């Protein structure tokens, strides 16, 4: 009997987890060293005490009562019962409780063996791990997006470079024959001013098609940005006036301009930026075939001048928004999809940038941001 008791106690003492042995009234019969150390309880005030009374009633925990008074009487054993409690002495702890009801035949009494595993550290580590893995996931996502963006940028640049070379070569070579055709038509029109109307019409057609081809070639060449920006200080209002002079809208489009009176001069390539504004105005007219409003505004912001073109056209879908400035992207039936790509290049060559906001079905606003600072190159 004595031997068995010593055997049991030595097991309890050896286990490196807090252990309590309680009698049927939940008084402590014995506790192991680990229990005392972990929960900073003194052995002399433990034995024979009601568990709930231990350490100034710190152990009077509702969940513990639930386990000992409701679950154990019914189940005889229970594993991994999680309990969280704020101890006055040792702070917040998360514990896993394992309890066994043991029947002692010798004196026909019951005992409860209660193992209290302190999992606070583990829980904290788990939380941390979870946090880390979430952060990691986010970082991976971010990095992936960066990589994808970089790749898209690279593809765009590559596309630009190849297209640029091709454009340079083909465009220039085309200008020679176009030049000869245009001279020839000029000659024919000149020496036959009284020719048949049909003939004159056809000559006119050739003329205008040559002009169109020349424009396409110019777009291609601008696109390959063969000409460096020749920057000068100019008035934005003058640029806008010139652009509107070149593009008379259909009667259906109502154009309003609102240019701040005290705008500083911008420092850009007048011809190239003029061409960008041309493009934006042309696009605006084209997205409003049934009519609408085009509001052109210019204002100063820090050392920049912002020129915006707001149309009431069909707007741009999210999907198309991403590809908007990509070369060869177009939604038009006729057109190479170079206009905005060229515009972006030209604006950037002058040290500016171009932005767009759009709502599908309501319209778009393109804003050209031009520098005012004079930069010597």
């Amino acid at each position, binding site marked *: 009997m004595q031997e068995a008791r010593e055997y049991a106690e030595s097991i309890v003492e050896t286990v490196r987890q807090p252990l309590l042995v309680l009698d049927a009234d939940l008084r402590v019969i014995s506790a192991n060293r680990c229990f005392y150390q972990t929960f900073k309880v003194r052995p002399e005030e433990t034995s024979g005490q009601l568990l709930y009374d231990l350490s100034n009633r710190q152990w009077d925990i509702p969940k513990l009562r639930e386990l000992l008074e409701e679950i154990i009487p019914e189940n005889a054993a229970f594993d991994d019962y999680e309990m969280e409690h704020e101890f006055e002495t040792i702070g917040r702890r998360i514990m896993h409780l394992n309890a066994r009801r043991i029947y002692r035949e010798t004196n026909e009494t019951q005992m409860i063996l209660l193992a209290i595993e302190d999992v606070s550290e583990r829980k904290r580590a788990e939380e941390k791990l979870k946090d880390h893995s979430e952060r990691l996931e986010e970082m991976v996502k971010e990095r992936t997006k960066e990589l994808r963006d970089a790749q898209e940028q690279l593809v765009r640049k590559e596309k630009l470079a190849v297209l640029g070379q091709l454009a*340079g070569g083909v465009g*220039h*070579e085309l*200008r*020679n024959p*176009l*030049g*000869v*055709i*245009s*001279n*020839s038509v*000029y*000659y024919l029109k*000149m*020496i036959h001013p009284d020719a048949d109307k049909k003939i004159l019409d056809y000559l006119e057609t050739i003329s205008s098609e*040559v002009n169109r081809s*020349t424009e396409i070639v110019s777009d291609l*060449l601008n696109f390959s940005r*063969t*000409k460096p920006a020749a920057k000068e200080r100019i008035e934005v209002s003058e640029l806008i006036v010139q652009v509107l002079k070149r593009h008379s809208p259909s009667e259906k489009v109502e154009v309003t301009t609102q240019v701040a009176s005290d705008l500083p001069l911008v420092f850009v390539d007048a011809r190239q930026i003029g061409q960008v504004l041309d493009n934006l105005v042309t696009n605006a007219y084209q997205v409003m075939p049934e009519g609408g409003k085009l509001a052109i505004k210019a204002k100063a912001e820090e050392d920049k001048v912002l020129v915006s073109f707001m149309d009431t056209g069909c707007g741009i879908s999210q999907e198309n928004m991403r590809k908007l400035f990509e070369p060869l992207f177009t939604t038009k039936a006729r057109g190479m999809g170079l206009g905005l790509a060229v515009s972006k290049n030209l604006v950037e060559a002058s040290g500016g940038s171009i932005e767009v906001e759009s709502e599908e079905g309501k319209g778009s606003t393109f804003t050209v941001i031009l520098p005012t600072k004079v930069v010597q190159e």
Partner: protein
Amino acid sequence: MSEKLRILIVDDDRRMANTLLDIFKVKGYLAEAAYSGAEALEKVEEGHFHSVLTDLKMPEMNGVDLYRAIKEIQPELPVVFMTAYSADDLIKEGLEEGALAVLTKPLEIDLLLSFLAALSKERSIVIVDDDPQFCKTLGDILRARGFAVTEVTYPAGLANKLGPDGQVVVLDMKFNSTSGLAILKEIREQYPQVPVILVTGYREEMAQAIEAALKVKAYACLYKPFQIEEFLQVLTEIHHRELGKVLGQFTRKRR
């Protein structure tokens, strides 16, 4: 200019040269075509041309090299480049050499024709100096070189006597009744663009007035007595600049 304008067109693309040739001939100019730089140079050496219109990119001798060679023979000859290549280094080189303009193919024929019309115009000069001897001697030299010359010794109301364009004013800086600067300002009010060359015998005394005059866009100031060659060169520069303007070339001040 009473004689017909003689234009030399140079392009290794024969069709380009020939179509231009046909157009110019119909318009009443004496045009000739050359299909290489070497051929063009021979023609310049033989005959007197009033202008050369040349392609930039040609095999063997390019347009800029041709222009350099032409300047050895006839330095004041107005040369215009045409090119299909908008990003060529040759363009910059050509303009730095003093070409009037670089035109991009296909050419705007109307622009070229208005250039030729401007080139055909008699060059007229108004000499404003209270010294009649100066007026007469300079006037005679210029008349002998084909200029239409007006001599003005009493500058009062001068601005009203000028035409709207096509003239160069030679203006003395010192008068008894008024100053050259005052006259210049009067001219500028009516004709902001008319080229004015200042002349004076009083370099130190007039220094301030000259500086002020250059600010109101006097083209240059020459100090008496000056070399006629120097004077003629300034006139050529002004002429070329005005012709360049017709071709849409932005003003480049070279002096």
